[in-house]
C-alpha cells in the first residue's frame, strides 16, 4: 500500500504550516509572561 502524492503533500504541507506558526505563538507567550512579570 503506497501513500499517494496528495496524501504526502497534505501531510508535509500541514506539518510545515503548523511549524511556521509556532514561533509567532511563542513570542506572544513571551510578551504575555513579560507583561505579567512571570517570565522567570
Amino acid at each position, binding site marked *: 500500500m503506497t501513500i499517494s502524492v496528495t496524501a504526502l503533500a497534505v501531510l*508535509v504541507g500541514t506539518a510545515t504550516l503548523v511549524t511556521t506558526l509556532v514561533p509567532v505563538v511563542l513570542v506572544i507567550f513571551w510578551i504575555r509572561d513579560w507583561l505579567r512579570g512571570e517570565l522567570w
Partner: protein
Amino acid sequence: MNSLPHAALDPDTGWLILAVFSLIWVALGAHLGRRTAGLEDYMLAGRKIGLALGTATTMATWVTSNTTMAAPQLALQMGVWGMLGYSLGAVGLLLFAPLARRIHALMPTGFTSGDFVRLRYGNTAWRVFLVISLVYGFGWLVSMGMAGGVLVNALTGIDYRVGMTVILAVCVLYTLLGGLRAVIGTDFLQTLIILVGVVALAWLAISGVGFERMHDAVLARRPELLNLLFPAALMFLFNNLLFGIGEIFHSNVWWSRAFAFREGVGFKAYLIAGIFWMPIPIVAGFVALTVPALHINVPSADMVGPLVAARLLGSSGAVIVFIVVFAALASSLDSLLAATSDLILTDLYKGHLRPQASETELAGAARWVILGLGLLAWLLCLPRITTLAQLLYFMGAFVASTIWPIAAGLFWRNVNPAGAALAMLAGTVAGLAGYFLIGFYVAALISAAVSMSIVLLSTWLRPGEFDWALLSPARETHR
C-alpha cells in the same frame, strides 16, 4: 571521516559562523547567570520559570540535532513511517504533562529524578536507576557531540574533532557560567532559530523539487519508502514511541524542568510543547525523500540532511543548516550538561560520597561536575564510533525499562519496590538482547514489555503501601 566531496561552505565562513554564535551563547549565558544566587537558583533557576520559557525550553531540548540530522536519516531508511515514527516522540512530552503536575505537587522541594526513585523505592532501585540514567545521559551527550563534529565537517570541511571540540567547549562554558537560567534563556532564542531555519528549508525543498517529482522519483528508485505496510518501519514506529516515553519519563532533563517551572506551568508547557513539536520531524525529515529526484549520492545516511540542503540551496542552504543544527545541538547539550551534573552532584556526590556536604561545597562541586562531564563527553566523541541513530536506539533498551516504575510509582501507592528495581534491570537486559539478536527497532519494545510485566506481577503478588508524604520530607531541602 566522512565529508562532502565539495563542502558547501569554505572553512573561513564556517569559522565565522561558529565564532559569532559561540559569542552570542556564551555572552547570553553569562548575562543571565549574573542573577544566580545560591545552589537552588543555579540548578533550578529559582523554580519560577513561566509558560513562554517553559514551552520553548521543552521544545528546544527535545528537538536536538537528531531532528535535523537523524530525522532525514530515518526518512531515507524507513520512508514515510520513519518521519511519522519520529514525530511520535512527541507523545512522551504529552504524557509527561500530567506527570509534571504530579511531580510538582508531590515534591515541591525535589531536585532530581533520582530523589524520587530513592524516596519511593529505596536504595537498590535508586542505584539501578542511576546506572540507567547516567548511561543514557552520557550516550545522549556523546550523540550530540558527534553530531556537532559530523555537521561541521560535512558543511565546512573543518576537521571532525576540531568542530566537535568547539561546540562542546562553548556549551560547557555558558552552562558553567549561568546554570539552568542560562540553559533556559538561550533555549528560547535557539527554538526560534531552529523553527525558522527548518521551515525555510522545507518551503525551499517543496518549491525547488515539488511533491509530484519527489513522489515519482522515490516510487521509481526506492518504492519501499512510500509503502505504508513497511514491516520494519512499523516496528520502528512503536519502538520510537516507547523510546520517547521512556526517555522523558526517567531523564533528569525533564524532571529538573518540572521542578523549575512555576506552579501551574508544568502541565501546560509540556502539553503545548508536545503539540508544537510533533510536526517538526516531518518538516525536517521529508527533505530526504528528495534524494532520488536530486540524484544525490549519500555516502553516510546520517549526512543526508546537510547534503540535500547543500544541493538545493548551495552556500546559503549550508549556512542555514549550520546555524540551525548549532542551535539544536547547543539547546540539547546545555540541558544535558545541567541535568546530568545535577544527578551526579545530588545522587552520587552528596548521596553516596559526601552526605554532609554544605551548600557552598555543593555549589563549587556543581561547576567541576559540569566541566568533568564535558571533558568525558569530549573523550568519548573523539573516535566516531557509530551513527547517531544507532547510538540513540541502543539507549532505547535502557530507558524504556523505566516507563512503568516511574509512571506507576507516581500514581499507584501499591507498587512493589523490589519489583520496580527488578523491572528496570530485567527490562534493560531483555531490551539489549533484542537489540543484538533481532534489531535496533525492537529494543525499547521488548524492554518496556518485560518491565511492565514485572511491575504488574510483583505488585499483584506482593503489593506495597506507600505514604506519599515521604516524597517531601523537610530534610530534602538540603541546599
